[in-house]
């Protein structure tokens, strides 16, 4: 199991270095009239701004760490998309555009915290130290996930929309019973916010005051449906009616995502219960490689969001503040290339599962019918080997 992700995290934590002297540049983010409040600490132009509730002064190492995380995640994602085009994967769900939401939120977590992702949390997986090739098994069609969630406290990808919000809540109830101070985070999308399971997760977490953070990446689209098809008010407001706070954060601002998630997990740890974060971001690509967004959305929408790119704004800041020299930027690019190469090779080398794997792990304690069918199928296959059949 590779620990590149984990390594990056420890780098960003190790830092005894002085805080990036960004304070002199900070302003307070301007909120457009009528627009809901949106926590922002770094503007699309790469300016640091302040927010009264969410202060965050990252060290240069942390800033460089975010940059590296986002670059590598994006590169990994692009490689996976390419691998799908080349027929190595059956499908890919790209996170392009959502790097800040994922890296920012995931870097706010401790190793003992627990993550319940959807199928798109590749950046979160990265930060948890999950080997990126692990994520590709289900998209290649060799397994349905298959990694050990407890290795990195990163649960399996969940495809049925919204289900994992309840798993996260139950897990968090267990954390509280154990008297532990870990937090749990459930990721889901704008579309998922309509599912009954998500509402029930809100109810259970509120009633039991469970230490869970609901992190909704509102990427504006649920396949072809715009977010307005799911709610006529901003999604973060949903929380209040269940009795816990909700906040909208600029999902393309890695600093704001980090700061807000950090605050939310701290609340959880100290027994203040759940919180909902709506990361306002954008799905830059298709829903998955099977999707054709030209059927339902205009290119200019994408163009507008390109100007808010999460990596670009951080790079602007790094450069402006002389926090990233050419060597650093080159080394990240090289690391990204190496990662892509490694992933490509690993995917191509991924063996097809054995026929008999169908019968494995259906039950933990065995099941007579599975045993019978396994034996019959083995016999059937053997009949070919013997040259006895058609």
């Amino acid at each position: 199991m590779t620990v590149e992700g984990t390594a990056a995290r420890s780098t960003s934590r190790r830092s005894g270095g002085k805080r990036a002297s960004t304070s002199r540049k900070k302003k307070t983010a301007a909120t457009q009239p009528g627009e809901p409040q949106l926590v922002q600490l770094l503007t699309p132009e790469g300016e640091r701004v302040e927010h009264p509730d969410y202060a965050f002064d990252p060290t240069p190492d942390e800033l460089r760490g975010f940059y590296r995380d986002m670059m590598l995640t994006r590169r990994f994602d692009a490689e996976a998309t390419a691998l799908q085009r080349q027929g190595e994967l059956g499908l890919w769900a790209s996170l392009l555009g959502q790097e800040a939401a994922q890296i920012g939120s995931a870097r706010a977590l401790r190793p003992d915290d627990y993550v319940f992702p959807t199928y798109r949390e590749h950046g979160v997986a990265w930060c948890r130290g999950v080997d990126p090739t692990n994520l590709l098994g289900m998209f290649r069609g060799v397994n349905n996930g298959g990694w050990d969630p407890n290795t990195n406290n990163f649960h399996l990808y969940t495809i049925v929309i919204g289900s994992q919000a309840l798993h996260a809540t139950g897990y968090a109830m267990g954390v509280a019973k154990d008297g532990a101070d870990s937090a749990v985070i459930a990721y889901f999308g704008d579309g998922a916010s309509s599912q009954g399971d998500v509402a029930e997760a809100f109810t259970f977490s509120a009633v039991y005051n469970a230490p869970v953070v609901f992190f909704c990446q509102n990427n504006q689209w649920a396949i072809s449906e715009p977010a307005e098809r799911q709610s006529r008010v901003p999604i973060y407001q949903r929380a209040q009616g269940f009795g816990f706070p909700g906040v909208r954060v600029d999902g393309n601002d890695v600093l704001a995502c980090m700061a807000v998630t950090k605050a939310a997990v701290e609340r959880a740890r100290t027994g203040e219960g759940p919180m909902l974060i709506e990361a306002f971001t954008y799905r830059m690509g298709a829903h998955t490689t099977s999707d054709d967004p030209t059927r339902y959305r205009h290119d200019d929408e994408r163009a507008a969001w390109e100007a808010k790119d999460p990596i670009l704004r951080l790079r602007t800041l790094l450069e402006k503040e002389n926090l990233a020299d050419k060597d650093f930027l080159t080394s990240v690019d090289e690391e990204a290339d190496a990662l892509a190469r490694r992933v490509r090779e690993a995917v191509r080398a991924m063996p097809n599962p054995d026929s008999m794997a169908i019968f494995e792990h259906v039950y933990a304690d065995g099941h007579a019918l599975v045993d019978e069918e396994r034996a019959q199928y083995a016999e059937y296959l053997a009949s070919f080997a013997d040259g006895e059949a058609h």
Partner: protein
Amino acid sequence: MAATSTTKMPIAKALNESLRKAMEDNPKVLVMGEDVGKLGGVFRITDGLQKDFGEDRVIDTPLAESGIVGTAIGLALRGYRPVVEIQFDGFVFPAYDQIVTQLAKMHARALGKVKLPVVIRIPYAGGIGAVEHHSESPEALFAHVAGLKCVSPSNAADAYWMMQQAIESDDPVVFFEPKRRYWDKGEVDTSAIPAPLHAARVARQGTDLTLAAYGPMVKTCLEAAAAAEEEGNSLEVVDMRSMSPIDFDTLQQSVERTRRLVVVHEAPVFLGTGSEVAARITERCFYHLEAPVLRVGGFHAPYPPARLEEEYLPGLDRVLDAVDRALAY
């Protein structure tokens, strides 16, 4: 007699044309589901319908299957005839409660005073190399439930006509669309007089053994019959078309002639529809059967990842293996 108007088209297109026809004929017909509007559904079955019939009749819904079916029930109570799309088989379960406790039972609860003409379209079964939840065959979980009807077309003509009939039905119909056959072409005569919705059809005549199947497995069985012919075995293929009710009369007649039956479906064998066919045909044809009714289907395991589905799915070889075993009795 109307002039015939026969066109060759894929199943997907036949379904699309059928929906269009139903919407033209009856302003109460609605289409609703996730992404059925501009996108035309992930399989494009509703392609162009929103453009032509408007957002009021082709409704992109919030992402909540219980909500989709629950509101469809309310719309039906108001006099509408909703055709609901469930995006993939594995995503019907959040709506399962509304389907089995409300949709299936409300007509009886009202002693017949309300009708629930709701069609639930489910692109189902495997063979398209998809990720988890996108390849399941849950039909037995609906056929067991009284108050629902369940059908599955195997070809374009049936797709066209059975969809019309399902929409015309005053009962809830779960309409299982064999997604991996969406692109299979066939002749559709839009002026024909269709067979009844729940009648089975002898798709190929034979004398030595009957293969019974529906939906995606009919093609597999026809191919098996062709292969068997080369080996000198004459197999009859019955396209069941309906899983609730099952047309046992047609099956019985066939088995009384052939004296052997193999039932094929993608769903797991254990408590699959084949178990009911086996039990009932054995009862009806006890003295005719030369061999027990054999079943070919999925294993008692979650649908496997794509690279294993060819192993999991009943293919030609597994069907012929069962045929051999039945003939060996």
